[in-house]
């Protein structure tokens, strides 16, 4: 291998174009990564970051444009070709196999056939060298999210990459796990490997990277040194306008308890799942309670138990406005003034192939007067869609399209708005702004906060700690199915919450 000149780019992509149907995901994108550089790729959801790196990894084929590696034009028909050059990728949604062992997962990403026991030995060596402890013989489903990411990183490193691409690597980590990742990345860079770091977390990028390429709507809008920018100026470039800060009305005087949970335990519904262990919480009128935690620590079980999708063992374990509802189903709870927005918007919150008006009925039939004498009131259903559309700025083509025709952000605004407009006494919402662009996220957070201040009680389950710190009055942490006591946000630090998210405090 010849030593590349210092000013010759390691990877030079010019004019890449990729189209999905009518959507122009990448519109003549240029990207230049220098050897040994930490390069950030910034942009909102849907800006085309993942599409771009998939083309660099050989998973997608560009329709136009050229990619050069150390000055030579290259063609990447498949990931194997990219790996052979020295391009490794850590995926955002892990590309792991739950029922296979760590060593088998690594073997699948290596191109040379090598017996699994030998891979296991090499794996142990690499993981020790980089301070990423892993047990080769364990099945992946037994591992924490942080450990799973270690597998992804270690198996990339075993291929001795020159360029490591990481797609939103910290979105699933606790702050402490993220610090561990940054230390690993520093070590990787010290060996002269370049890192292409995709994120929308601006502080991380400012800490880690010396160059940033910013994408918006599939186009490169800026190239800059993130260390000379502020988080706000980077955000402005990503979004294209000022991002409005959340308007906080004064926290209300302590109101009456609207939701009370006592000693709630729920068995996990599948052998790989996490249940709930002795959960207790109080939620008062006028406040937003945040439930922090890394995904997979019981969030699904908590949402299911609070909504009534899974019944509590005893009725008095969940008390809503003085009534014991632990054994009541979701519709009975809705009639008592509760509303629920699950995490998965397409498939759980909304039926993909039903129109918006039908979807409004699906959650509102018990309490919104859309059914009279067993007959559907179409006018009222459509009226409800129009009202949500106006209040939440839902952008759609026809008046009443199928749910799957909406973009993620617009559908999320619809499913949150559908419940918020009912002015429920209690709103339980899970991951309210997951995968939603900054504008829509701001609007949704403001609506939830306004709802609480108008007298409702709002419970937000979220993995996004920044979101909870921004909008919640109190935060509790869910870890392995147990819930820490809720504490006022004013007295909490990110570090304190992070330790609890990792089960350390």
């Amino acid at each position, binding site marked *: 291998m010849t030593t590349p000149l210092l000013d010759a780019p390691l990877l030079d992509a010019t004019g890449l174009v990729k189209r999905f149907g009518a959507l122009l995901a990448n519109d003549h994108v240029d990207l230049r990564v220098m050897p040994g550089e930490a390069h950030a790729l910034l942009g909102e959801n849907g800006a085309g970051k993942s599409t771009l790196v998939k083309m660099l990894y050989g*998973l*997608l*084929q560009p329709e136009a444009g050229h990619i050069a590696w150390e000055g030579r034009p290259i063609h990447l028909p498949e990931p194997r070709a990219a790996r052979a050059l020295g391009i490794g990728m850590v*995926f955002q949604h892990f*590309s*792991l196999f*739950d029922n*296979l062992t760590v060593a088998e997962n690594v073997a*699948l990403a290596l191109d040379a056939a090598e017996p699994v026991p030998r891979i296991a030995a090499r794996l142990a060596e690499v993981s020790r060298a980089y301070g990423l402890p892993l047990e080769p013989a364990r099945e992946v489903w037994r591992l924490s999210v942080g450990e799973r990411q270690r597998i992804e990183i270690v198996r990339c490193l075993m291929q001795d990459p020159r360029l490591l691409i990481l797609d939103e690597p910290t979105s699933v980590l606790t702050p402490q796990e993220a610090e561990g990742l940054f230390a690993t990345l520093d070590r990787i860079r010290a060996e002269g490997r370049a890192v292409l770091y995709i994120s929308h977390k601006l502080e991380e990028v400012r800490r880690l990277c010396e160059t940033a390429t910013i994408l918006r709507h599939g186009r490169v809008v800026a190239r800059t040194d993130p260390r000379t920018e502020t988080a706000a100026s980077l955000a402005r470039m990503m979004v294209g306008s000022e991002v409005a800060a959340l308007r906080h009305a004064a926290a209300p005087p302590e109101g009456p308890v609207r939701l009370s949970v006592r000693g709630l335990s729920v068995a996990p519904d599948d052998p790989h799942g996490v249940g709930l262990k002795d959960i207790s919480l109080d939620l008062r009128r006028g406040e937003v309670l945040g439930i922090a935690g890394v995904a997979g620590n019981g969030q699904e079980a908590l949402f299911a138990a609070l909504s009534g999708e899974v019944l509590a063992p005893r009725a008095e374990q969940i008390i809503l406005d003085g009534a014991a509802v632990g054994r009541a189903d979701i519709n009975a709870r809705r009639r008592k003034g509760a509303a629920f927005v699950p995490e998965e918007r397409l498939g759980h919150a909304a039926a993909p192939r039903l129109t918006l008006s039908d979807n409004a009925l699906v959650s509102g039939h018990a309490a919104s007067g859309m059914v009279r004498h067993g007959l559907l009131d179409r006018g009222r259903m459509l009226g409800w869609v129009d009202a949500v559309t106006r209040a939440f700025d839902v952008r759609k083509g026809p008046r009443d399209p199928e749910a799957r025709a909406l973009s993620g952000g617009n559908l999320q605004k619809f499913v949150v708005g559908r419940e918020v407009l009912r002015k429920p006494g209690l709103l339980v919402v899970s991951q309210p702004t997951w995968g939603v662009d900054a504008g829509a996220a701001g609007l949704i957070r403001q609506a939830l906060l306004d709802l609480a201040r108008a007298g409702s009680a709002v419970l937000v389950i979220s993995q996004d700690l920044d979101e909870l710190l921004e909008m919640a009055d109190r935060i509790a942490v869910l870890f392995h199915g147990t819930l820490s006591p809720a504490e006022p946000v004013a007295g909490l630090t990110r570090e304190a919450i992070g330790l609890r998210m990792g089960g350390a405090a």
Partner: protein
Amino acid sequence: MTLFEAILLTVITASTPLLIAAIGELVVERSGVLNLGVEGMMIMGAAVGIAAAITTGSSAFGVLAAVLAGMAMAALFALLTLGLATNQVAVGLALAIFGLGLSGVVGAPFVGVQREGIGAIAIPYLSDIPFIGPVLFAQDPFVYAAFALVAGVSWFLFRTRAGLVLRACGENHASAHALGHHVLRVRFLAVLFGGACAGLAGAYLSLVYTPFWTSGMTAGRGWIALAIVVFASWLPWRAAVGAYLFGGVTILQLHAQSAGVPLPTQLLAAMPYLITILVLVLVMRLRGGGAGPAALGQPFVPDR
């Protein structure tokens, strides 16, 4: 030859077609594809196998033709479910029905034609061992092939990289694709292998077990093979246990019926099903397994 030896021999011949078909389907399902059309592929193997054997006068050619017939049926299934990403359950059911119908047409000219079945191959010296010899080492080639298949598939799935890739495609096709494995190609080859095994199992029925053709002669064995795969937790050696258990109890209950055991014949006829399911469920409980390939039955469409 004692009566006991004779019973054991009939058990082996009753179990072998189940085992061959089940091993093929096991590989298919491990790759993430559910092919419910085993019955259809199997009976096409039986019909084409005997038709070719009678026409050419060669049993070997009959077996080859049966394997190719099973593969042709499987290729049709693969074209629809992998190429066009249609529903695997619907296409599999259609394949089973289609195979039953088409085999009737293919076999019609050969109804009632008797021919000499494929004989046993006695392994020198080993077959002379008292008792064990005639039972284990004086069998027809299919019995040996069945056990070679079990051992080979077990080795392939758990000891080779290609087997690991195949299992990975069945666990999570999106991840396998993201790592650059050719999910559809792997699945296509697995489906073809399943078809070849089903065709071979069919050939056994018409060339060895009852060496003549009657329409519908598979008599539901394809469905039993499917059930064995599930209850064997997708493990090859457990599938062998399941197939032999089913074959064994089938023969034993026939002897019990003729011996006048005072139980309703319907109950006795149901025994193979009950006992096989019971035993394999118990094994699953005690030894684990049972979840199945996570991506089983899900169509995969790569975004390109």
